[in-house]
């Protein structure tokens, strides 16, 4: 489903990473300039790299960024289908996905935003419990003494 807020945020990225599965079934990716056509709800590519010329079908487009301390993390993925439209290749978007579980921002939670951290904590804990339920047995106890030892070692 198209998401106006995330689409607007996506326009701020100079490039994105476009991925498909190649003929052998391996995923393949390129980084390229992507333009969101808000009116038509598609993404166009002013210069599709030679490596990606033949790509069609299911695809995704990742936008992400971080600073030199791996902070200020932002990320979102647009899922969709690469199609030919008017002689050019476009991504027809079917869904916007964020890693933070929110639909209005691509900013990853950070300790400096306690509300975001709380939301992320609740989401993560719920999903981790789902995983453990499916797993059939709880995760083994964490060896915190080992964690302390590794922290001291560094």
């Amino acid at each position, binding site marked *: 489903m198209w998401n106006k807020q995330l689409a607007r945020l996506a326009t701020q990225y100079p490039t994105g990473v476009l991925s498909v599965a190649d003929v052998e079934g391996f995923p*393949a990716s390129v980084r390229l300039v992507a333009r969101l056509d808000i009116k038509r709800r598609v993404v166009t590519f002013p210069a599709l790299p030679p490596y990606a010329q033949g790509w069609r079908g*299911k695809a995704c487009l990742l936008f992400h960024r*971080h600073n030199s*301390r791996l902070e200020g993390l932002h990320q979102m993925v647009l899922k969709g289908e690469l199609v030919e439209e008017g002689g050019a290749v476009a991504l027809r978007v079917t869904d916007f996905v964020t890693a933070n579980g929110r639909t209005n921002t691509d900013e990853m939670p950070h300790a400096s935003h306690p509300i975001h951290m709380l939301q992320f904590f609740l989401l993560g804990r719920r999903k981790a419990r789902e995983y453990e339920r499916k797993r059939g047995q709880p995760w083994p106890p964490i060896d915190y003494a080992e964690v302390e030892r590794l922290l001291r070692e560094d």
Partner: protein
Amino acid sequence: MPALQLPDEVAAVLRAYYTCEVTTVNGKGQPMTWPALAYYDEATGEIFFSVSIAFPVKAQNARKRPQASLLYSDPTGSGLDHAPAVLVQGDATVAEILKSTPHATALNKLAQQRQPDSRRFLASNLSRRLFSWYLFKRIGITVRPRRLTVWPNRDFSQEPTMIEVAESEAANVE
């Protein structure tokens, strides 16, 4: 597993780029790409990263369909300004990290070096307890490269160079 014989500038990218873009494909053929911090084990040629059990999609996809790729295309923080972009395609194996392993330990150290603030988070007893599902309950994904595709100067408008990785022998640059 034998080490990969890679051109220096390619090995430097696998070592130094802070993040790469990992792609797995689900059962319906839909690729999904997320950034990841990955550890390149030069001795074995393997690339290792992990995901929290709360967000296991990459691992679940790779379990069903082991073909995976990692694109190294963003040099932010690495100090490598004119380095190439590298696409690694390979076979993934997936395993829960139930005790410390050399790969998991190396990845943790790398994360703390590259993201110094994460060390403070890890050092807090409260954070450790509240976010154990994120920090410690993790699934490891190890990728054995089969093919590397290299774009000098990260110029995707050019035809790339391919490096095929033959099993149990050195890489061949075409």
